[in-house]
């Protein structure tokens, strides 16, 4: 996702090495994805579910069908 849009950056964090950070984000199960400190998604999910779900929670939807070139 970070490759697709320059506004997206992605940290992969080994939770047990940073207990303070894990406490702050209340990491109880992994994988846990946190976006902009507000959207949380626990557990692994296939891309077809993961990307639309995260985007929906961020209020990002496909506004219209892309116009034909």
């Amino acid at each position, binding site marked *: *996702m*970070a*490759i*697709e*849009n*320059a*506004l*997206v*950056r*992605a*940290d*992969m*964090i*080994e*939770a*047990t*090495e*940073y207990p303070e*950070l*894990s406490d702050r*984000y209340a*990491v109880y199960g*992994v*994988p*846990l*994805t*946190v*976006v*902009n*400190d507000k959207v949380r998604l626990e557990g692994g999910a296939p*891309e*077809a579910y993961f*990307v*639309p779900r995260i*985007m929906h929670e*961020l209020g*990002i*939807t*496909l*506004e219209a069908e*892309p116009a034909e070139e």
Partner: protein
Amino acid sequence: MALLKPSDQAALREELNKMTNPVRLVFFTQMLGCETCPITKQILEEVVALSDKLELVTYNHAIDREAVERYGIARIPAIAVVRLEVQASDDGQQFTEHDYGIRFYGVPSGYEFMSLIGDILDVSHGESGLSAESKALLAQVSQPLHFQVFTTPT
């Protein structure tokens, strides 16, 4: 003593053969107070030895503040996975960095290790491999998004 078994090295070498552009692994470490830095360093050294398209650059988190700032490094050990792109210049070819903002914090072992290898390939290709639908959604992103994915070694 090598962390990667000879059979793993062979499989990884084959996988890394699929790289197109070179990739720079920018490693942030510290001499003191970082228990997992030495093992991370060893893993990275063994990985970059498997491909001539991989290079390792190491910074000291406590000293090299300019680099810490430039790559936006929050903690150690940290690895930034950065694409190198050829740019023609007056004195021949020059590589410039294309930083997609991909970082690994902590030892890349277990499942995280395969994530790192996968990201090296994606960054090398400059292609996420995501579906057309995902790409269309991501094209709509107009504000900075900071993903943090927590994992544990397995």
